[in-house]
């Protein structure tokens, strides 16, 4: 993956930049020794690594503002970082950048149950937002798989989703306000504890902008009352297409499950070997979860199971206890870990219209044979968000490149089927060069125009999202320093 050549002039200013940062931050919040900056050399897309010039760990909006102002004056690129769980390389540094980690900013600032909002610093992890309100019967809905570790800052940057967004939406549907620091250090407040914007929806624009428009330091999030109960049903089918048709029929029937998860045979086999969740060996497995009171759950599941029976399932298992529910989810939740046990893998994130599911799965399995690399499919079927996991061997020369080539073909297939390159992980560097496949030049130009307004010198996370050749002229604008 190509990254811009580090700017020697910036590297030459390193000691001055470090000195200026030390003047505004506590001594342990500026990391410049090469042995220590290595901790920030990559995120969860571990195939790509590059230690930053400096890493800073500010503790307040004011400190973030000071850091950005200095970097702006010095013309130093800044790469914001939440918890570093991005699968798309969203927090991958360049050698001439300052990594700005928000991990120390993890306080809950206000919980307001009457208005159903919580105000947090964005270094706080996703699951600990729920942790702060669950005693009172509330939760924060977006639930990315990495929710134990991932930060709200990263969730906002990537507009993260999760298994339950079929009902509750993704980050952008649950974000009400932010405090954001602009690249020049200016602090802006957008949105709040009220709904909708009185002007342009800047909040909607910021969410999912991959840390390229500003650094979000505080966020007001919608919290929701926990449902009375939830229960999953597990269904197995001996054909992918039949499972896909079953998903479509459930949705059409007017039942709205909170989650519909899909796993194919390679994935089922791997997770069974790893987690022993007791899954049936079949071509396709669905986990469908509904919520409500006991009686409501019974009613909804009976409708869902009636639909499933019409598709001749090889297995139809309604959970009868909390323990059984946990086991049904166990396999799904360990799917990535299980695939990782077998080999290195690359996790894709394309989304397709639900109706194209059978076609896309068939094409992926054909391509898997062509490329000679195995693929397991696990995904959020209700909204068409696929997660093909391509297995490869990082120690085998050429395998990573082959895997990337295969991955790119799958994503192009998603676009051709009427879908998109990424449903919830973000573009980062991983899908950056495929953007021209989904978008025409004028579409990309319109998006880059937004960045021009927020960050005219393209100093914030500059080498991400847009193909390097497309953004080249903007990234080489003369900077303020010297």
């Amino acid at each position, binding site marked *: 993956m190509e990254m811009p050549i580090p700017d020697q002039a910036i590297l030459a200013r390193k000691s001055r930049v470090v000195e200026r940062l030390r003047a505004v931050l506590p001594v342990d919040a500026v990391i410049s020794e090469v042995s220590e900056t290595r901790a920030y050399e990559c995120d969860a897309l571990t195939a790509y690594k590059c230690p930053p010039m400096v890493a800073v760990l500010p503790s307040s909006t004011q400190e973030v503002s000071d850091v950005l102002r200095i970097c702006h004056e010095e013309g130093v690129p800044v790469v914001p970082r939440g918890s570093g769980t991005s699968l798309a390389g969203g927090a991958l540094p360049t050698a001439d950048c300052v990594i700005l980690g928000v991990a120390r900013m993890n306080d809950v600032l206000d919980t*307001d*149950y*009457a*208005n*159903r909002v919580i105000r947090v610093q964005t270094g706080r992890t996703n699951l600990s937002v729920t942790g702060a309100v669950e005693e009172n*019967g509330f939760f924060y809905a977006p639930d990315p798989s990495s929710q134990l570790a991932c930060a709200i800052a990263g969730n906002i940057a990537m*507009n993260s*989703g999760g298994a339950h967004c*079929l009902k509750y939406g993704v980050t*952008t*549907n649950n974000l009400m306000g932010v405090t954001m620091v602009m690249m020049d250090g*200016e602090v802006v*407040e957008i949105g709040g*504890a*009220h*709904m*909708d*914007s*009185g*002007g*342009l*929806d*800047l*909040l*909607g*624009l910021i*969410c999912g902008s991959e840390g390229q428009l500003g650094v979000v330091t505080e966020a007001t999030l919608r919290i929701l*009352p*926990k*449902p009375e109960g939830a229960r999953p049903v597990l269904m197995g089918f001996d054909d992918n297409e039949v499972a896909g048709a079953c998903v479509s029929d459930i*949705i*059409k*029937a*007017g039942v*709205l499950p909170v989650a519909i998860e899909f796993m194919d045979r390679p994935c089922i086999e791997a997770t069974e070997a790893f987690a022993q969740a007791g899954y049936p060996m079949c071509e396709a497995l669905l986990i469908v979860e509904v919520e*409500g*009171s006991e009686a*409501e759950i019974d*009613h909804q599941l009976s409708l869902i199971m009636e639909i499933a029976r019409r598709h001749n399932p090889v297995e139809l298992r309604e959970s009868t206890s909390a323990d059984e529910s946990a086991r049904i989810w166990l396999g799904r939740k360990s799917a990535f870990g299980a695939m990782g046990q077998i080999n290195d893998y690359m996790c894709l994130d394309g*989304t397709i219209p639900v*109706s194209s599911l059978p076609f896309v799965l068939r094409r992926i399995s054909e391509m898997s044979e062509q490329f000679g690399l195995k693929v397991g499919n696990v995904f*959020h079927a209700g909204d*068409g*968000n696929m997660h093909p996991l391509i297995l490869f061997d990082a120690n085998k020369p050429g395998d990573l490149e082959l895997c990337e080539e295969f991955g790119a073909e799958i994503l192009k297939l998603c676009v051709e089927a*009427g*879908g*998109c*390159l990424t*449903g*919830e992980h973000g*573009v980062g560097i991983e899908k950056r060069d495929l*953007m021209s496949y*989904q*978008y*025409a030049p*004028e579409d990309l130009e319109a998006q880059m*125009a937004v960045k021009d*307004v*927020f960050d005219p010198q393209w100093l914030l996370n500059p080498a991400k*999202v847009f193909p390097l050749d497309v953004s080249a002229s903007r990234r080489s604008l003369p900077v303020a320093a010297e």
Partner: protein
Amino acid sequence: MTKPDTEAALADVIKSATGPLSVRGGGTRGMSGGYAPLETGGLSGISLYEPGALTIVAGAGTPLSDIDAALAAENQRLAFEPMDHRKLLGTTGTPTLGGVISANISGPRRIQGGAARDYALGVRFVDGAGNIIKNGGRVMKNVTGYDLVKLMCGSCGTLGVLTEVSLKVLPVPETSGTLMLRNLSNRDAVEVMSAAMGSPYEVTGAAHCAKILDDAPITALRVEGFEASVAYRLEKLRTMFSDRKTDMEIVPQEMSDWFWEGVRDAGKFSEAEGDVWRVSCKPSDGPALEAASEAEECFCDWGGGLIWFRTRSGSDLRAKLGSFDGHATLVRASAETKSKLGTFQPEAPGVARLSAGLRQRFDPRGILNTGLMGHE
């Protein structure tokens, strides 16, 4: 009047425009100014509808009634319950899909199900320089690049003219019903609505108004879903508030629907004189804002997070409310008052600069609905 019937023709109109244009869908929402009208009605028709994928794609000029009819045939609907402005504003014409999306029009269900902007999956539009641009798509989860769909939604035609919109739709629930509580004070009503919204019973409407059925204030909580579930949850809510010593009544779907249509369309104000404002706020701030407003009349929706005010013509509600967590939009007033006070709440300087910057980039000549948002 210009009414192009293709996207390319619309782009040509914008490219060759020599002065400001008033972008018009159905012209029912009082947003079009007095410039040369550019109508989107020629860009009409549903191009794709997949009930099993909960998605519909249609031209921006498609009448909302066409969308509603197509969805109803599959027992689906637009879940954000867009308001019909015609009675309140005395406008005629046909509301269009593009109008709903460009003004981010949402009704009572916004409190639980989200706003129009939460259901918009993709857009095609022509910017102020005549470029044809697409963003998003027709799938429910999409983080490929910046979310210009949200930016367009609520930009009221000032950044570009929508030509096509794709939307997420939802099934129509089996039934619905409403619990009505009588004679609560504004403050108690907000408490009740907050408690109901904080319960697990999935309230999809929470409003408080006086003088709907008779003079007594009514606080209404709506529940939707399968029949047995709706009955169960309404009963649970009734039990929650049984110690409030207030009259409570559960009304069935037909009356419930009539009531919520009135809330959605601010029907209460359609016959009355004066200006109408729509204030988005933190629900718990509502009672204090109502007290400060010196308004003739008000009622609230969204659990208290949306307050509709009717004021004397020409009075500046924003000045009375002062600074608060939210914003006030002037929905109905004379052209003079609108021009003096502005339709939209002035933004804080930092935000205003960003908004102006975006407008400058997307509409460099300042010809799209000039002056509607912001006073530049």
